[in-house]
């Protein structure tokens, strides 16, 4: 009996030593080596692909943002956000969470709605989003057909931080953006075309338009 307890203790000791050594190798040396290489070779990317506009950092090229009007009452958490239609609008992000645990920070908590295709709440969200997209983007001389609204315009992404919209959704916003900014439709169309990324190597992933980059370019255009 004593012998078997001794053996078990020896075995657990070996297990602990193995874990500690492998923690040093895989949990300390490995991430430090990768960080060293990453920072030396791809510094900007390793730090979050920040992009600037007018000398100011305005976000990450990879993380989606909202383009809403300022709140009427900044202290009212329930006030619904109203999109600033001057700017290209991103996908809905109904699954984005709020930081609830370590509340000394105001971290973005990525996430999806996790609603199923037959969920009434999701059906309502899609319906409302579609109506809003049609209404917001229909301007004199250009009427949006509800059948032309692409799926990404009315659904939330997996992360809630999708930096892109589909080229179809960008195209649909062109007339509105041109009107609100007093620009030619042709000018804005060219802007969208210039900021449309194709598939990687022609077949990987889907084409998309980075909304932040597009809006930065739009801002430059309007300030010319």
């Amino acid at each position: 009996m004593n012998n078997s307890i001794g053996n078990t203790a020896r075995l657990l000791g070996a297990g602990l030593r193995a874990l500690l050594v492998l923690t040093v190798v895989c949990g300390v040396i490995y991430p430090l080596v990768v960080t060293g290489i990453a920072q030396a070779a791809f510094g900007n990317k390793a730090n979050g692909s920040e992009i600037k506009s007018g000398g100011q950092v305005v976000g990450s090229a990879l993380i989606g943002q909202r383009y809403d009007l300022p709140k009427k009452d900044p202290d009212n958490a329930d006030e619904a956000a109203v999109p600033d239609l001057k700017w290209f609008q991103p996908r809905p992000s109904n699954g984005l969470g709020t930081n609830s645990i370590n509340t000394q920070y105001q971290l973005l908590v990525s996430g999806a709605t996790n609603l199923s295709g037959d969920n009434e709440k999701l059906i309502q969200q899609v319906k409302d989003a579609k109506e809003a997209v049609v209404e917001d983007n229909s301007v004199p001389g250009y009427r949006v057909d509800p059948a032309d609204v692409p799926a990404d315009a009315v659904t939330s992404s997996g992360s809630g931080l999708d930096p892109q919209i589909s080229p179809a959704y960008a195209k649909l916003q062109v007339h509105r953006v041109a009107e609100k900014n007093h620009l030619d439709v042709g000018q804005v169309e060219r802007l969208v075309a210039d900021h449309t990324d194709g598939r990687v190597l022609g077949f990987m992933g889907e084409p998309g338009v980075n909304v932040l980059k597009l809006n930065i370019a739009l801002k430059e255009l309007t300030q010319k």
Partner: protein
Amino acid sequence: MSPVVAGVLQFAALAVALGLAYRPLGDYMARVYSSDKHLRVEKWIYKAVGANPTTEMRWPAYLRGVLAFSLVSVLFLYLMQRLQGSLPGSLGFVSIPADQAFNTAASFVANTNWQSYSGEQAMGHVVQTGGLAVQNFVSAAVGIAVAVALVRGFARSRTGELGNFWADLVRGTVRILLPVSVLGAIVLVACGAIQNFSGIHEVGQFMGGSQQWNGGAVASQEAIKELGTNGGGYFNANSAHPFENPNGFTNLFEVFLILVIPFALTRTFGRMVGSVKQGYAILATMVTIWVGFTALMMWTEFHHGGPAFDLAGGAMEGKENRFGIGGSSIFAVATTLTSTGAVDAFHSSLTGFGGGITMLGMQLGEIAPGGTGSGLYGMLIMAVIAVFIAGLMVGRTPEYLGKKIGTREIKFVACYILVTPALVLIFTAVAMAMPSTLTSMTNTGAHGFSEVLYAYTSGANNNGSAFAGLNANTPWFNTSIGLAMLLGRFVPMVFVLALAGSLAEQTPIPETAGTLRTNKPLFTGLLVGTVMIVAGLTYFPALALGPLAEGLAS
């Protein structure tokens, strides 16, 4: 190019890349686990552990090594989370509550990576990088070690010796997982995945104000998360988060990392038993199921059945624009046919049938190609059942790779295949009987049931993905899923190692005209059928209540 064509091309490119890696990686792994030489760093590790890497172990000793190492790992990871509030480098994050810390410790040690926490707001650098990411390596190495021990059971005769657990653990980590992870992490950073220790990152926004992210060693964790078929994301959105998976290429690259070791292990198996054709037959079975599931997934997702998706004009809810439907379908199948559980699109918002495919993939036992190691041993168990059934049909004593499948062997195999279904179905039934479960559900009706069935399927099969509408951060779910993960990982390993020991003791029997040829397409067909029938009969009633009901209604 239409999204469907692009999806098919991406799948084809992935298959080619995996095909190119198959032989060199499979042969390399066979050499790693057969070599007598020790690298200098390995010798140093053995010295620190106090283990002699050349000591041969019989199956009980090998099992004791697995269990001792894993037990210590659970305790260590649990304590780390419980003490997070006092550990330096934790960004000031508080300690994790007891039930959630148990769940997470069990989850990462069992190679499951079920997460009832949101990474970015709960875990600091020390726990993420020094605790969770370490288990991503070693739990994968333990899985491969057990698979290699079973292969040695087939390959060796009249000995009962299965190798040395410590040597297999260390070699898998140092010679296979680490080098590939370093390369993988660098590729990911080059494409935009982040890798820094700047902590909470605050950057300005276009419309004014600022946003805060929790930065960290993301790329290094992402690489081993996929390569070790772990799946625990740095961020809550997992591989849908742009910092974990920045573009269409990284998406395919991550799927490649998920599948490369499990597929190549069939080559390692073939090499070690002295016939690569035996490995090809197993590989062909895995590929058949993988291709079939991916085709079905793409069909149902492009077809987008479901009222909300019909209204939207596409099943883009929970999917990222940069991956689209094709890339998301490929990822969803790969992650659930292996024990990965990483997601680049949220499975709860897949179509009814799409959700069913992910569940069935796990319920097959994650064997096509399955987790690192666990996929190979799971499929070999099914192969033993297949030869057993074939033997019954013709009235011969079944044999596989020159070893008799007698009463003793078939008992171990039968126990193996009963463990996970029992855990899944019993825990699901108990949870559904509890009134409190209703309050955890986001969706109602068939999909609400699916959320619970998915949770225990994912836990007991060590997958880790979720129908994440279920709020699983309750004492009941944290505890019961934690137990399902531990039992679903280690009880089957007991039977695998016992089987391996029993096979290794046998004297090989010569092949005769009556021996079932297990290296031929006929056997592959038999094996595919066995896999589908065993899982189908077990889970069909439960699937009918959940995803099938939802899919047929849409």
